[in-house]
């Protein structure tokens, strides 16, 4: 596990050896997690990896079977009340009363959190402003869109200005514009110093916003680090290949069929080359494990994940080009780039993020 340089700064979340089972299902098996104050930590992982269980434990909603969790210096099991005074939770489902207006919800939640009536009212209009909901706050929550609900829910968890925000998939199910608005609000909070622990299914969000990314898989943290550190875990570089369209401009007969056959491709009898077959043959020629050359679903693009080569070293690109030429594979475009967080995730968990 990579350790970021957080030495000296106090920890907002300090968890060690956290385990939790539901019946025979192990949700978490000994998690260590440190979130320095003032940072944004993202929990990433496939569905069922234990992300929600972990944030629920931090938010005092679930008790761990084993291990110790301290939130802003307070133990979640021994002093849940102290923890609750200092956190704001935005759960997977909006914690709002549909039959009340936005403002009524905010005031109720603020007052239950301990604010006096006048404070709660003043704060409600502040937080509604903050999440761009001021104009809709008087309306019944029932009339809100999914994005508005999410933003009001976030506003509700900000009523007491908590130093730690816990967000469980705050942007799931939102359209891109709503997601953008929510992230704007979160960015403003982070700039003001709020610590955030969030789960997300969107790798590009973690990439763009998180200081630290923790990758969960089957109840364990399998990697932690900055997005850049995680990407470098993949090692090497990525070559992207766009196959030429044999139908356009060139005739299929122009391909050296003998070469294709020798390399194990199906003969290009006037049809498009099989990208999967090209991927297999290329892996063989470059002496790479089969999984590192992937044909994308569009069937005309391939990515080659190499463990050799570093930034600024185009040797890999030349090797790939030579292999393709040797097999006579028509290529429209070749490019060299750094791995994405998606590829890091795939390399770490052995499967794509979307797989449940």
């Amino acid at each position, binding site marked *: 596990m990579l350790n970021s340089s957080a030495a000296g700064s106090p920890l907002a979340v300090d968890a060690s050896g956290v385990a939790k089972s539901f019946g025979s299902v192990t949700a978490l098996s000994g998690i260590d997690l440190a979130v320095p104050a003032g940072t944004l930590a993202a929990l990433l992982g496939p569905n069922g990896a234990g992300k929600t269980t972990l944030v629920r434990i931090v938010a005092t909603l679930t008790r761990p079977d084993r291990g110790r969790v301290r939130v802003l210096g307070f133990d979640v099991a021994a002093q849940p009340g102290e923890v609750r005074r200092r956190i704001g939770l935005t759960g997977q489902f909006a914690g*709002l009363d549909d039959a009340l207006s936005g403002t009524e919800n905010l005031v109720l939640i603020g007052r239950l959190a301990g604010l006096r009536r006048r404070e709660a009212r003043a704060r409600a209009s502040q937080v509604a402003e903050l999440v761009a909901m001021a104009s809709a706050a008087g309306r019944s929550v029932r009339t809100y869109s999914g994005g508005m609900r999410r933003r009001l829910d976030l506003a509700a968890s900000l009523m007491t200005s908590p130093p730690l925000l816990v967000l469980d998939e705050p942007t799931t199910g939102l359209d891109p514009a709503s997601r953008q608005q929510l992230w704007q609000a979160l960015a403003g909070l982070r700039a003001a110093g709020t610590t955030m622990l969030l789960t997300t299914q969107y790798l590009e969000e973690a990439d763009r916003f998180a200081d630290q990314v923790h990758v969960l898989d089957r109840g364990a943290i399998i990697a932690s680090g900055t997005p850049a550190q995680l990407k470098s875990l993949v090692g090497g570089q990525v070559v992207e290949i766009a196959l030429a369209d044999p139908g356009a401009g060139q005739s299929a007969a122009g391909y050296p069929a003998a070469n294709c056959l020798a390399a194990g491709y199906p003969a290009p009898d006037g049809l498009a080359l099989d990208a999967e077959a090209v991927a297999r043959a290329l892996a063989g020629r470059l002496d790479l494990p089969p999984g590192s050359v992937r044909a994308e679903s569009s069937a005309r693009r391939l990515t080659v994940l190499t463990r050799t080569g570093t930034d600024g070293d185009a040797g890999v690109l030349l090797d790939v080009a030579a292999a393709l030429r040797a097999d006579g594979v028509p290529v429209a475009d070749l490019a060299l780039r750094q791995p994405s967080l998606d590829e890091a995730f795939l390399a770490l968990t052995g499967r794509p993020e979307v797989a449940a």
Partner: protein
Amino acid sequence: MTAAGTAPAGAGAGHAAVLPHLRYRLVRDTGLIAGRYLRVLRRNPGRLIYPLLQPLVLLTLFLSVFGNLAAGRNAAPGAYREFLVPGIIIQNAALTAPTTGLALLRDAGSGLADRFRSLPMSRPAVLLGRLGGDAVIYAVQAALLLGVATVLGFTVRTGLAGAAGIVNIAVAFGLAISVLSAWLALLINDAETAERVLFFPAIAIAFVSSAFAPVADLAGWMRPVARFNPVSAAADLIRTLAAGGPAARPFWLLACWIAVLVAVPGVLAVRRWQASP
């Protein structure tokens, strides 16, 4: 605002939360949750049709159809009216009680349960607050029923004090059944199932009781059940109070029922609400 003037939620801004003493919090939070339910009713007056309007329609229909019957062997015409009204008051309280459990279940199934559990609020207040809101509904329901029944010929011989007593009995009985419905709903833990299951026993205990007919006139197999039934106890107490007879025995009988209903399912319901997975 004592905190977070311009910086909206800074870590250093602290929190403006004022946390009164825990015992005071229970009362305060219960009031806030009760206020929430009453506010919802004010914004959605349609929700009052079931607990307030429908009972009045039922009462009017029942009294118009059966009001002039004689009750018992040698009673005067119209005596059945005096017998029936207390039964209808209690029957309606029993039929309103399932809404308590359903409302709690709705909250438990939405994100609100997690929201409440993550707040530094008193946990029993979620249930107690709902009961507080329900108490208002039961009181208004009983008062309206009494008022309309009086117009239709029902008499409370003990005057206003007796009427106030009757309203209080309806509230206490309704809340006890509400507690039972809260526990059952949380036990069933599925809104749709609960909706279909909870009303049935409410109807059954109302009919297999002395609400609509003296126990002696019920089918033989019903009589032991009807005698051992909180609906009978509550209706009998209201009858005694309306007629002005000695109320000690029915009072203590009902008090025992309420104590049992509140204590056992109440503790179980609060525990179930608090139990985090």
